[in-house]
């Protein structure tokens, strides 16, 4: 294999990775997974049966559902949609970092006011940050798309 062909193959693989998207029907599948997971999470809190493992699994399925919605193709995937995705990812990334920095302080203030017995200053869990990031991305993407219409 000569150098030029090797470089072309590398470029093709990189393009495939950059342009990776799930088929459009994954949007519906993802939405159903998120709704079911959130429903079970809420009802799990109300039930007598409390299980950390069950809660952990439901949190992961929520994230998977949100990821499916985020990665699903639009019906017509063109350069404008790509540009909107990039803008939405940028906003979501910055918002996610700010959320991770600010939310523990908000929690601290709330716990201090309520005089809760829980530890006041604690880090956010990975689920909260990732859920926030994916939700902000999806919201901004559809907001920007609607704005362009």
């Amino acid at each position, binding site marked *: 294999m000569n150098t030029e062909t090797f470089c072309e193959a590398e470029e093709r693989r990189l393009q495939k990775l950059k342009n990776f998207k799930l088929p459009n029907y994954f949007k519906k599948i993802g939405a159903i997974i998120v709704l079911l997971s959130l429903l079970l999470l809420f009802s799990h809190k109300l039930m007598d049966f409390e299980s950390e493992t069950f809660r952990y699994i439901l949190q992961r399925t929520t994230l998977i559902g949100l990821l499916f919605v985020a990665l699903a193709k*639009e*019906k*017509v995937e*063109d*350069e*404008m*949609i790509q*540009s909107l995705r990039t803008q939405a990812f940028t906003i979501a990334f910055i918002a996610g970092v700010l959320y991770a920095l600010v939310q523990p302080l908000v929690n601290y203030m709330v716990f201090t006011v309520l005089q809760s017995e829980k530890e006041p200053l604690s880090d956010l869990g990975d689920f909260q940050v990732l859920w926030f990031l994916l939700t902000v991305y999806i919201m901004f993407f559809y907001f920007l*798309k609607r*704005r*362009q*219409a």
Partner: protein
Amino acid sequence: MVFANGLHYVFLFSKTKTSMKNRIKVERAILDITQEDLAKRIGVSRQTINSIEKARYVPSTVLALKLSEVFKKPVNEFFFLEETV
């Protein structure tokens, strides 16, 4: 220093913003085709054509050249730069 082109004077002494205008709607009307038809011909969504016509989205060079092929005119006959103060 005196500049022959008054626009350079504007550049130096005031804040200007370069925006892009277009005549896509006019060119589309000349060909008597809908936004949907034009979108299909160049391989984008109708929404993209609508956004370009309203100057909300600046297309890539590739897309501009595809439009040039459809309209059979050079790109700078339907895309213009405009300086606003």
